[in-house]
């Protein structure tokens, strides 16, 4: 599997786009989606919520387990992906595209996030 070069990655297996107009899109990586198995339920933060980098902001439920979703950056939620709430399988089928989770107006620095190459090395280890 390949991790898109233009994205940044957290060690909790979220990806986010580099902020444009201060807004980043967040999802979970293909590596994480494969590890979870079939995702059947997603609980996302609500528009207007404030999330804090490194803290939980939702959950992803698969056949065998439930996993917490962490905010990779701090900020305000400006949009959530209703398509993925309605069809959680999008997380598995298109983790970097239609399976995105939410958009956040970033408030803090994104210094501790990994590049695609760093994340690939991290998940290989």
């Amino acid at each position, binding site marked *: 599997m390949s991790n898109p070069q233009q994205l940044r990655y957290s060690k909790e297996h979220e990806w986010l786009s580099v902020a444009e107009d201060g807004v980043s899109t967040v999802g979970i990586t293909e590596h994480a989606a494969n590890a979870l198995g079939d995702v059947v339920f997603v609980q996302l933060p609500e528009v207007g919520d404030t999330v804090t980098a490194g803290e939980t902001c939702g959950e992803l439920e698969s056949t065998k387990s439930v996993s*917490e979703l962490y905010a990779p950056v701090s900020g305000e939620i400006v949009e959530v992906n209703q398509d993925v709430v309605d069809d959680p399988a999008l997380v598995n089928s298109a983790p970097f595209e239609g399976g995105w989770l939410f958009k956040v107006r970033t408030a803090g620095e994104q210094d501790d996030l990994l590049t695609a190459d760093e994340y690939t090395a991290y998940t290989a280890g």
Partner: protein
Amino acid sequence: MSSTDPASDQSAEQRHTALDAVHRALGATMTDFAGWDMPLRYGSERDEHHAVRTRAGLFDLSHMGEITVTGPQAAALLDFALVGNIGAVKNARARYTMICRADGGILDDLIVYRLAETEFMVVANASNAQVVLDALTERAEGFDAEVRDDRDTYALIAVQGPESPGILAAVTDADLDGLKYYAGLPGTVAGVPALIARTGYTGEDGFELFVRPEHAVELWQALTKAGEGVGLVPCGLSCRDTLRLEAGMPLYGHELSTSLTPFDAGLGRVVKFDKDGDFVGRTALEAAAGRAASQPPRVLVGLVAEGRRVPRAGFAVVAGGEVIGEVTSGAPSPTLGKPIAMAYVDAAHAAPGTTGVGVDIRGSHEPYEVVALPFYKRQK
């Protein structure tokens, strides 16, 4: 994201089945199960589940524990050691039964095959195989019978689903039409000797094939080829769990444990008090039967979610703000398209259709409908 999945535990001394290389070649996601490195899924567990319900699935179950009991008093030993009436099992038939402690607690649930008048094969759960072997060995004292550890003698491959009779018929001359549910006969499958049993754990018609480990790859490949045209797919333990849950079948460590008697588990019917002679646990089980009759214990029921959050083992079942039970197994049901669970609940809340029942899912009381088990029954 951080997973709370306990299945990711790795053990340094994992055992591998004879099909290990096949699973890896198929790209299986592997998991530790009772010390064995087993396939969890090959692709999507939901697709594997649907394949078994509508077509057929192929499973490696070589982790199950086989114990052979032979000798003139083999039947008498098993009648003493187990709660069922094993002496009454006819040749080439199988019986679901349990082995209990003297205090009535369930040590394991078992399938016993009568291979001959004086020869039986006991199949134990992988996690309990040593416990069952030790108990049978100990209980054999004074009987003219031998208890043999045959865990390494067999690989076990199951083909399950509506297409399974046709698939198996393509690679065996055995009389499958004459083979009833819960029966087993020796035969040849794909050129290798096998015990062919019409048993399974999926709620579908299907077969379990006990073969020597050196024949396992050959048999797996022959079945794969025979199933190519009808949609047979390899299946892992993940879909096996959702299949058995939909079929309302208990799983040791979830619905069954040493802290429950068969009567507490709603399976008192497997205890045969009218068989000849004493058996381990009789006194305690008679007391348990009496208690169950006068003061019903918690009842194993089905729960169907109205929402989409999934109940897991150990979650509290609630009604009116009180805890009335506990979830023993829960998963999203691929067939129903909703989360389902088995749970032990107080008898007052056990009737199908009881309203106001919920499951405490991480602090939120989610509404559930109480239903009779099983959730799914195949059309015959």
